[in-house]
């Protein structure tokens, strides 16, 4: 059983559905629907209850469980409503005693097939099979039980599969392939021995699974469950809060389940749509952070040791030091904070301390990206020239340049893999270090260090020579300036063979929907011209999605773009004149490479959720709530989407919000900071 073959039989094909209205008779009632709808969709839209197990909104339908069987006039036998295309004049019955008898029979057969005893199942109370058992008053089973002894696969760090609880509905298989784009799961073996299997029956932890957890969210029973959320609470015992993932620039919406001020689990709000997947970091990583929390303010004492003190004392020490400093003070903030905190910090630095040295931790990325965009087009579009990540799953060619999405922006992996499997997209990786998409990439170009500029110019020249560009966009001076990039020279400088160069150029040039994605690896070259080259490449090949070029730059945090657009990263801080730094680190990971230069600072104040190398350097450490306890606010995703975060947990007792600290601190500096 391969999900790929049947996928999109009706719904996900796109364009199959017309808007033509049709009328059906269901249980003697006239109802309306659209041509291309399934009978199940029309029933659901009209409030006609049909039991389902293998159907899940957002996934294609396969008719595996047969719970939704209906009688249709002129059909010889009951058919599953989820795969039956509705047509005008269809006469359907959903609630005859005969159908109810079949459904109960199906349930009993499912229950006897494997271990479906609820009293020792983690999912009891959240199980769709159990719910149907109750609904159909299944108080006994007429058939002998099979009791197969199947293994429990707990080899993954996050997920466990208990095959004994599996009903083979295939929702995990479809979620893995259609939502996460990974297709690590499929069915193995045959007949009643069929099991869900990762790759070719590898343990999940050793397979190509990326632990994004879509399968777990799709599973109707206790067959796939999270090791981190086990027995922490049933859905009915939890509050659900929709917020934004603070981690990377994608800024996924999260549905966070909370019980007694504890995180229970994190889900995608829905499995429908192009942003339906989550990644391992968002779904599991946020639940488990083993770093040591900063729970009390710390001040460096006369003997040079950090010691605990009250928040008031810490702020007084800080204020005295800031007043003493007079100049040479800079404020640096993590772009994991919402707009409200960022703008308050902006005002704190500029008004309360009078400094205009302000930056975000990822400000350098902005200056390179924005510099490149400015050189390409001076029409003031700024970051808005880039396209939405929704362009990725629609692409037929994707260039991934100096980016490792699985490490930094894992959701993008899902989108790219979906483009590959669903649109047959060609994937070209340009990376000096490694082929980050092996074995799924079609081509890996490995330019010599620092030769990216030559490579991009060389590619552009080949495209122009081959006539794969929009001619009206090719000014004579461009042709002139590219004339020095002779193929042999490009081959020599980049170390890439001519065949690969030409193949990359013609694949991208012939694509109708080519998307360029670049990241940290390219920005490390510190050259905005590289960004300009990529924008030009997209422009020349006509890769415009309305007003946006199909180019996407990776931005490190959920509110990087929000912070940059507030002007927090407008200029470099002259580090040679720097005397004091106030760093709002939030819960960002320590990265010594990034702030080793802070070691020589006279005065360093760090506001952080976790102890790290950087807090141990500080003169004053103030505790900052972790992501879930942080006050809500506005976030701008890397492709410009406005997201709203919400506070999920109450902070630990006595812990102030960053907003409160900034206001108090400015009071101590003799400045009244308005909260908004």
């Amino acid at each position: 059983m391969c999900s790929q073959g049947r996928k999109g039989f009706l719904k996900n094909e796109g364009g199959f559905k017309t808007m033509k209205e049709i009328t059906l008779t269901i249980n003697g009632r006239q109802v309306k629907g659209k041509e291309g709808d399934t009978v199940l969709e029309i029933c659901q839209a009209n409030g006609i209850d049909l039991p389902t197990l293998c159907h899940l909104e957002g996934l294609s339908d396969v008719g595996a469980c047969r719970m939704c069987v209906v009688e249709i006039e002129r059909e010889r036998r009951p058919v599953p409503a989820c795969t039956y295309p509705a047509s005008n004049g269809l006469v359907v019955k959903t609630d005859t005693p005969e159908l109810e008898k079949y459904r109960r029979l199906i349930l009993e057969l499912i229950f006897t097939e494997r271990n479906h005893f609820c009293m020792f199942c983690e999912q009891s109370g959240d199980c769709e099979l159990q719910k149907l058992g109750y609904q159909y008053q299944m108080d006994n089973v007429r058939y002998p039980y099979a009791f197969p002894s199947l293994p429990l696969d707990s080899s993954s760090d996050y997920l466990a599969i208990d095959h004994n609880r599996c009903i083979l509905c295939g929702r995990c298989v479809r979620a893995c392939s259609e939502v996460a784009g990974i297709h690590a799961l499929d069915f193995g073996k045959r007949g009643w021995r069929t099991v869900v299997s990762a790759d070719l029956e590898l343990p999940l932890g050793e397979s190509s699974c990326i632990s994004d957890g879509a399968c777990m969210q799709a599973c109707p029973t206790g067959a796939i469950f999270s090791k981190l959320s086990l027995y922490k609470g049933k859905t009915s015992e939890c509050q659900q809060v929709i917020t934004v993932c603070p981690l990377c620039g994608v800024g996924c919406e999260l549905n966070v389940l909370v019980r007694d001020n504890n995180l229970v689990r994190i889900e995608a709000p829905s499995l429908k749509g192009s942003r339906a997947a989550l990644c391992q970091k968002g779904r599991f990583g946020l639940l488990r952070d083993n770093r040591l929390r900063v729970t009390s303010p710390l001040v460096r004492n006369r003997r040079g040791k950090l010691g605990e003190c009250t928040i008031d004392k810490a702020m007084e020490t800080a204020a005295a030091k800031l007043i003493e400093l007079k100049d040479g003070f800079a404020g640096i903030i993590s772009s994991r904070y919402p707009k409200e905190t960022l703008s308050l910090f902006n005002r704190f630095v500029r008004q309360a301390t009078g400094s205009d040295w302000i930056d975000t931790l990822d400000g350098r990325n902005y200056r390179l990206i924005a510099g490149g965009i400015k050189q390409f087009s001076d029409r003031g579009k700024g970051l808005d020239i880039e396209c939405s990540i929704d362009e990725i799953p629609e692409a037929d060619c994707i260039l991934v340049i100096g980016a490792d999405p699985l490490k930094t922006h894992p959701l993008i992996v899902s989108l790219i893999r979906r483009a590959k499997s669903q649109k047959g997209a060609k994937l070209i990786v340009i990376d000096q270090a490694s082929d980050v998409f092996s074995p799924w990439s079609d081509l890996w170009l490995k330019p010599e260090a620092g030769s990216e500029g030559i490579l991009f110019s060389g590619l552009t020249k080949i495209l122009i020579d081959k006539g794969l560009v929009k001619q009206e966009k090719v000014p004579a001076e461009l042709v002139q300036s590219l004339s020095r990039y002779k193929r042999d020279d490009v081959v020599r400088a980049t170390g890439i063979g001519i065949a690969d160069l030409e193949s990359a150029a013609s694949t991208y040039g012939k694509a109708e929907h080519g998307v360029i994605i670049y990241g940290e690896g390219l920005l490390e070259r510190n050259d905005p011209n590289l960004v300009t080259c990529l924008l030009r490449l997209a422009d020349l090949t006509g890769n415009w999605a309305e007003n946006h070029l199909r180019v996407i730059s990776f931005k490190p945090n959920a509110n990087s773009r929000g912070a940059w657009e507030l002007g927090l990263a407008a200029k470099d801080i002259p580090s040679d004149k720097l005397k004091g730094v106030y760093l709002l680190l939030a819960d960002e990971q320590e990265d010594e490479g990034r702030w080793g230069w802070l070691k020589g600072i006279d005065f360093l104040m760090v506001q952080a959720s976790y102890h790290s190398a950087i807090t141990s350097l500080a003169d004053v450490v103030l505790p900052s709530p972790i992501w879930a306890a942080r006050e809500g606010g506005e976030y701008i995703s890397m492709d410009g989407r406005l997201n709203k975060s919400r506070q999920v947990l109450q902070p630990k007792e006595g812990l102030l919000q960053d907003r409160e600290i900034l206001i108090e601190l400015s009071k101590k500096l003799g400045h009244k900071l308005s909260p908004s």
Partner: protein
Amino acid sequence: MAKPKIATTWLAGCAGCHMSFLDIDEAIVELANLVEFTASPVTDIKEFSPVDVGIVEGSLNTTKDVEVLKKLRANCKILMAWGDCACFGGIFTMRNLCDKGELLRRGFIETESTKKGSKVPASEEIPALLPQVKPINQLVKVDCYVPGCPPSAKAIHYAVVELLQGRIPVLPSDMMRFD
């Protein structure tokens, strides 16, 4: 009119269903006026005499369970199954996932708390394990079921009252429990 007679028993069970029955609180006094409990773990009468209703908790695990169930079935007009073990097999079916010999070895010889040199107890008085644990309807005819692990006191009360009023109880969906 003589009071209807009820006999109850437990096979492979944990007594939880009987506990849940005692949880019907003051209704038990009322019930005691309406029915007569003969053989039951509650009355500690062991031998079955003919009754109107036989109630079984637990699944079929040993040869003794088979014997007891057959006797009760022969002595009652209506047989009611209490709890997931009797209705479906329940938690005892976990042993069906492994081999019987392996199970006994692990249980009596290899557990962390057993002394070295322990053996699987064997005696004619100890009933033998059946090859597999089964729900009771795979051996005898069962007339009505009250699933749950254990069934709620409310569900048990509902089922008994339905019987007293001459109806074969089927639990409504909101009283159904498999855990």
